[in-house]
């Protein structure tokens, strides 16, 4: 693929949506996710166009986006955040039927609440159907670790969704209560 011309259009057309979704799951909000996506394609222009094997493009893009996200985190780590694993066991769990009732953005928000180690592999798993060897390669972690993080991450996600559903329920006031 060359730096300019239709190939770049093809790469952007094929990958900007899944990359954005992955970025959103990592960054948690629209603006930084958009920046991450743009920056990934910019890096692609700088360094990725030399790839000989077109099948490597997808992995290159997702790996690069993840690395850029980690670099950015160096700055934000100074701001405190809660460790989900400290409280996750106390949260309610949701099942498949409950998920069907939830808005996609709420699911994304729940995903964004997971700690970094579980969020990234789970995002690739759900958003792009990456297999565990592909996740292992993209994130640079052992296959066994990927499998255990997927398992624990799924449990965390269920509980985060349960907490989100509970919070949503609390927003709906009975008519007489709202009126009063």
């Amino acid at each position, binding site marked *: 693929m060359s730096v300019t011309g239709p190939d770049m259009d093809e790469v952007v057309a094929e990958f900007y949506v899944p990359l954005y979704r992955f970025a959103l799951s990592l960054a948690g909000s629209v603006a930084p996710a958009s920046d991450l996506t743009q920056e990934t394609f910019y890096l692609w222009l700088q360094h990725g166009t030399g790839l000989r094997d077109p099948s490597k493009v997808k992995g290159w893009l997702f790996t690069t986006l993840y690395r850029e996200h980690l670099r950015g985190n*160096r700055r934000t780590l100074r701001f405190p955040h809660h460790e989900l694993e400290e409280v996750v066991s106390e949260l309610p769990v949701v099942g498949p039927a409950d998920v069907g009732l939830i808005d996609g953005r709420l699911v994304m928000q729940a995903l964004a609440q997971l700690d970094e180690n579980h969020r990234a592999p789970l995002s690739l*798993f759900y958003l792009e159907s990456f297999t565990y060897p592909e996740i292992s390669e993209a994130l640079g972690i052992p296959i066994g670790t990927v499998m255990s993080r997927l398992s624990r991450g799924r449990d965390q996600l269920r509980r985060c969704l349960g907490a989100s559903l509970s919070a949503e329920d609390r927003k709906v006031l009975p008519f007489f209560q709202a009126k009063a």
Partner: protein
Amino acid sequence: MNRTQAQFILGACPPGPLPTDDPQVAEALALAETDGVLAAWLAETRSFDAAVAAKLRSIEPPADLKDAILAGRRLPAPAQAKVGGPWRRPVRPVLWALAAMGAGILGVAVLREVDDGKANDQIAEAGTAQDVPGDLRMAAAKFLSEGWRHDFDYPESSFPKIQQWAAEQPGQVRIEVPAELAASRTYGCKVFEWQGHRAMLVCFVAKDDDQVIHVVSVDRSALPDAERTAPEQAPVFAQVGRWNTAVWSHGSRRYVALSTMSSETLARNVRPRRL
């Protein structure tokens, strides 16, 4: 293989058809045929995964993101990219700040409510327009090739500390911003050369919606013809592609603010009443 091992293997299969040609998956599935607990777990988990995947994949990116990405490749590219340290979010905004200075302050193209395509065309061409200094493009290219992968010079969440740090640097870069911004959290700052002048970028986090506002400050003498288009303490707003921008002058400096937030929110953050 026991039930727990089978759960690990089957639980790592992404949503969609199970890869039954994988020997481990096949063995786990065979176990599920004789293990009712495992079979129930598998059905419930696959259903959950499919529901989550469908929900997540229903999220669409911002409508202008693709155009913004494609427009970005038309900006001046560095001839020889040097590998440096990490330099993340401020990169593109800085480049666009420079372009905005060319487009907005120098009067080449102050864009108001123009379509994104046209705006991006003008950004891309700002460095080649005859009445824009040729070294504007060079500055952008230089910044891309040498500075864009570098980390903040001073990562700091307090703007007063950034001001103090800047004042202690060689050349004493001054930066003063409206009170609303000054009270906002920051990510850090970066000092760089532009047309022989010291410029400074500070990345703020808006208090009301957590979006980032990038502010570039450059010496007033770097843009002597900008009195009309960058008035004293009275920001002029323009939309440039997906960015809302504000330019103004204050004291010895000219300022460009860029953000993807709405123009109204940006205006609230850069209003000059308490400068």
